[in-house]
């Protein structure tokens, strides 16, 4: 993968000794806190204000979503195992865990797709009521982030398969992990606020 800081004859000097790209990802995650924060705030403010149904209590399937939540949590485990493997240059395991992370992420997305189509079938569309609008927007934005993450992970997997990813690129895998775990952490919040605290 590519380098970041402008070249200097003195080498890649940094004021903190920390990598630029890692700083970038953490700062970006800070910005994403405000993005999801605003979406969450919209959802919470509109909770209980839908004038027509269907209403969340009727539709939300806690057992099902518990399973998909668990899947996403485990994908984070896969991710740290992938990073650990890449760091010790065990690319066989690295490829395995990268693929597993992407796979579990895809399973999660599959669960979201199933849930959305079920809700649609039950009469909850984007424009049906405030619950539909705010629910689909919030969880949809999260899902889009997961989707981007899956593409990113698969790209790394393909690179690894082609022998172009190894311990020298551990930082890249670490940064991918930061993004992935953050997306997982957002889901932890959403699972509680949307599903468990349904009213």
């Amino acid at each position, binding site marked *: 993968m590519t380098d970041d800081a402008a070249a200097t004859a003195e080498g890649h000097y940094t004021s903190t000794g*920390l990598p630029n790209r890692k700083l970038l990802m953490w700062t970006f995650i800070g910005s994403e806190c405000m993005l999801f924060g605003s979406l969450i705030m919209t959802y919470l403010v509109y909770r209980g204000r839908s004038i027509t149904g269907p209403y969340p209590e009727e539709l939300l399937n806690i057992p099902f979503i518990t399973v998909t939540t668990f899947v996403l949590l485990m994908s984070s485990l896969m991710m740290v195992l992938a990073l650990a493997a890449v760091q010790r240059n065990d690319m066989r395991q690295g490829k395995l865990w990268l693929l597993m992370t992407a796979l579990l992420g895809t399973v999660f997305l599959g669960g979201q797709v199933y849930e959305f189509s079920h809700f649609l079938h039950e009469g909850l569309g984007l424009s049906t009521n405030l619950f539909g609008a705010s629910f689909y927007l919030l969880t949809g934005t999260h899902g889009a982030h997961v989707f981007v993450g899956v593409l990113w992970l698969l790209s790394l997997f393909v690179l690894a398969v082609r022998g172009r990813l190894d311990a020298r690129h551990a930082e890249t895998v670490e940064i991918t992990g930061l993004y992935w775990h953050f997306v997982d952490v957002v889901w932890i919040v959403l699972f509680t606020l949307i599903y468990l605290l349904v009213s």
Partner: protein
Amino acid sequence: MEHATNEHGHVEHASVRTYLGVAAALGIITAVEVMVFYIEALHPVLVPILLTLSAAKFVLVVGFFMHLKYDARLFRGLFVGPLAVAIAIILAMLALYGVFTGGGAPGA
């Protein structure tokens, strides 16, 4: 560019065993959350319990999986600052919308 270490020596890493332990904890906490949800008697205190449990999961993922516990404090600042701003604004908005006082929407 490989920068897995900083200038002051190498960064600690959690072991694979720690990761597995954290993953197990995440699973267990999730199960507890769902159980609490189904126990009617706990419903008056549902909100604080669930918020605490999910906060615990949050901290576990951020601290161990995202390595923040072992990493430079700067990263902690870069994350906690914006997070605090986001939470404060959410709480302010909930207050403005009467969520804490059970009131109606202002200007609705």
